[in-house]
């Protein structure tokens, strides 16, 4: 359905997308997971034909963005990262307008607008101006506008940024439902949980490169048998971290939160817990909590890049 192959894009001298390759099958939900500035939005703009690129190609249903951007635009609905709506107009007016821009007749647009309002659960607010909506409601209409023409592919660029958990759950459930009904979904986020919840296949992107692609299981299996142990300590102590680093099973230590929280990558957790605690005690550092983390994508990202998805 969608093929992105060896796409490169530079802004001036800086290359921000460095040969990205991935493909998405019909009916699949594909997640693009990466930290701020990884190149997610840039990649999406290129898929939608909004941004010319230097090398590589992108095809949807066999149509290339370079030669047939209009054919692609008809097939996809984009939910931009920003709320691209007219604030002084009602939700209904906005949906009708975007419906017409996708080529619907007035009558079809009107019928579809009511369906879409049902999907996003805002039918009772149809006549209200967007500027009177809460952040979460705006986000929902923002998604609704991309659904007006029943796109084959729905591309969502961080559709849950800055909203409350309730709205976020509503959105995730909606997207999951759309996917069940057969819509192909491409979902970008830097929230691992969202991508894990929605997507069968996931691409991890960092610094303009896809550093891993596969199903969640595939990806977790790639973790070199390692586990992450989170240890919260009373105070930071440099010599403790140094000593921990010399332990044979410790692969890497990442510190965060005033450096009182240590994330310690270990290749086997069997004797690790005991040794870590005793090393801390030996250094006169109090351990307030210690826990073994289920391996997840965050762990994988940490292992691959040495950084966490969000700071």
């Amino acid at each position, binding site marked *: 359905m969608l093929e992105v192959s060896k796409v490169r894009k530079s802004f001036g001298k800086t290359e921000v997308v460095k040969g990205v390759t991935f493909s998405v099958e019909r009916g699949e939900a594909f997640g693009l997971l990466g930290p701020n500035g990884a190149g997610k939005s840039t990649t999406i703009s290129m898929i939608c034909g*909004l941004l010319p690129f230097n090398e590589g190609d992108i095809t949807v249903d066999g149509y290339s963005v370079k030669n047939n951007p209009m054919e692609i*635009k008809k097939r996809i609905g984009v939910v*931009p*990262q920003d709320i691209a709506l*007219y604030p*002084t107009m009602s939700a209904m007016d906005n949906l009708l*307008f975007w419906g*017409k*821009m996708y080529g619907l007749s007035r009558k079809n647009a009107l019928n579809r607008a009511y369906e879409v309002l049902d999907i996003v659960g805002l039918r009772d607010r149809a006549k209200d101006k967007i500027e009177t909506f809460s952040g979460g409601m705006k986000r929902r209409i923002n998604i609704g506008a991309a659904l007006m023409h029943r796109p084959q592919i729905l591309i969502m660029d961080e559709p849950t940024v800055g909203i409350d958990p309730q709205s976020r759950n509503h959105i995730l459930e909606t997207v999951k439902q759309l996917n069940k009904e057969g819509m192909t979904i491409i979902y970008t986020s830097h929230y691992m949980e969202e991508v894990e919840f929605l997507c069968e296949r996931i691409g991890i992107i960092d610094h303009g490169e896809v550093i891993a692609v596969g199903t969640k299981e595939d990806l977790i299996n790639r973790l070199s048998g390692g586990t992450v142990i989170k240890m919260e300590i009373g105070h930071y102590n440099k010599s403790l971290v140094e000593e921990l680093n010399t332990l044979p099973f410790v692969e890497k230590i990442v510190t965060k939160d005033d450096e009182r929280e240590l994330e310690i990558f270990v290749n086997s957790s069997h004797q690790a817990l005991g040794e870590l605690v005793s090393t801390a005690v030996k250094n006169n550092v109090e351990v307030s909590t210690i826990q073994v983390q289920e391996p997840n994508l965050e762990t994988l990202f940490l292992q691959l890049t040495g950084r966490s998805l969000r700071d």
Partner: protein
Amino acid sequence: MKRIWAICSFEIKKLFIKPQSYLLMFGMPLLFTLLFGGIMGDSSTGKVTLAFIDQDHSMMSKSLYDTLQNNDLFLLKEMSHNEAATQIKDKKLIGLLEVSKGFENKFASEGQPMVTFKYSPDFTSNAMIDQIVSNAIAKMKIQSTASTVWSNYSKESWEKMYPVLDKEISTSTPSIQKVSITKNMKKQEMGNVSARSAGFSIMFVMIVMMSVTGVLLEARKTGVWYRLLSTPTSRLEVMGGYFLSFFLIGWIQFGVLMAASTLLFGVHWGNLLGVFILVTSLLLCVVGLGLFISGFVKTTEQQGAFGSVIITATCMLGGVYWPLDIVPSFMQKIAEFIPQTWAMRGFTELISRGGSVQDIVAPVSVLLAFSVVFLAIGITRVKYE
């Protein structure tokens, strides 16, 4: 085409859904017209009065009196020297013009005919009156010279020819604009209100256009532009839709202002085709200016701020608030480079002189030239990515 219309009608709806748009588009210009049109008054009540003291009692002094009476700055009242002196003292008159004995003879001989002009010190338009009197005398001098030449050939007295020439010249040549404007008494009465009406319509159409062209900046900021281009809508259709909306909004505004000023102030806008062409070229120019400014600023707020300053300043220079004949000549020179001056000239042609399309070729061409420059720079500066 469907999409162009969808964008255009949506933009229009977006504007008219806001109550404050009506105030800005229609309320303010009509209010300003009422205020400025009323304060400056129509030309007969706004005139000052001067005494005319005729010591010569000749054909030429009579001719001077008639010529001078024909202006829209002052009224002349014939009276004796003593009468004038008391009235000036009582502040009933602002000054006097005295034609001394031998005035006519000076025309026949080589001498310079003189008129004495005395005015009270608080009178500020003296330079203009000076000018008008000098012009009148110069004109009479030319006529009398012509008559003398004629009399040398025909052997008849030059005094016979002079009145004929005088009549010919003042009816046939609109050489001095003021003379021809004031020829038709009915239209002359409406001069100031019409001019302010046209002026404030121009100004507020410009202000509205400035905020309307700002939608391009806003669309890019909010991401609406991004989304528009992600739909199967071509860049050309998007621009077409926006441009059509600019022109329709401008036309709706101008049309309503024309209708309202006709009803409220009795303004006659003249040849409708002429008005249509003139306003369209003005709109093109203003849309160009709007895009030009948005090519240099980052936000709609900046666009609004720059726009207002530029519009207000150029409207002052362009004779929108007051007639250009009352400003110093260097400012009249600057005015040649202001689009509003040309728009006002076009309207003067249409409203006051009953001009037709041929008569506004010059102002329309100049406005179109401004448009080309603004649009060319504006469109290359605005980024549509």
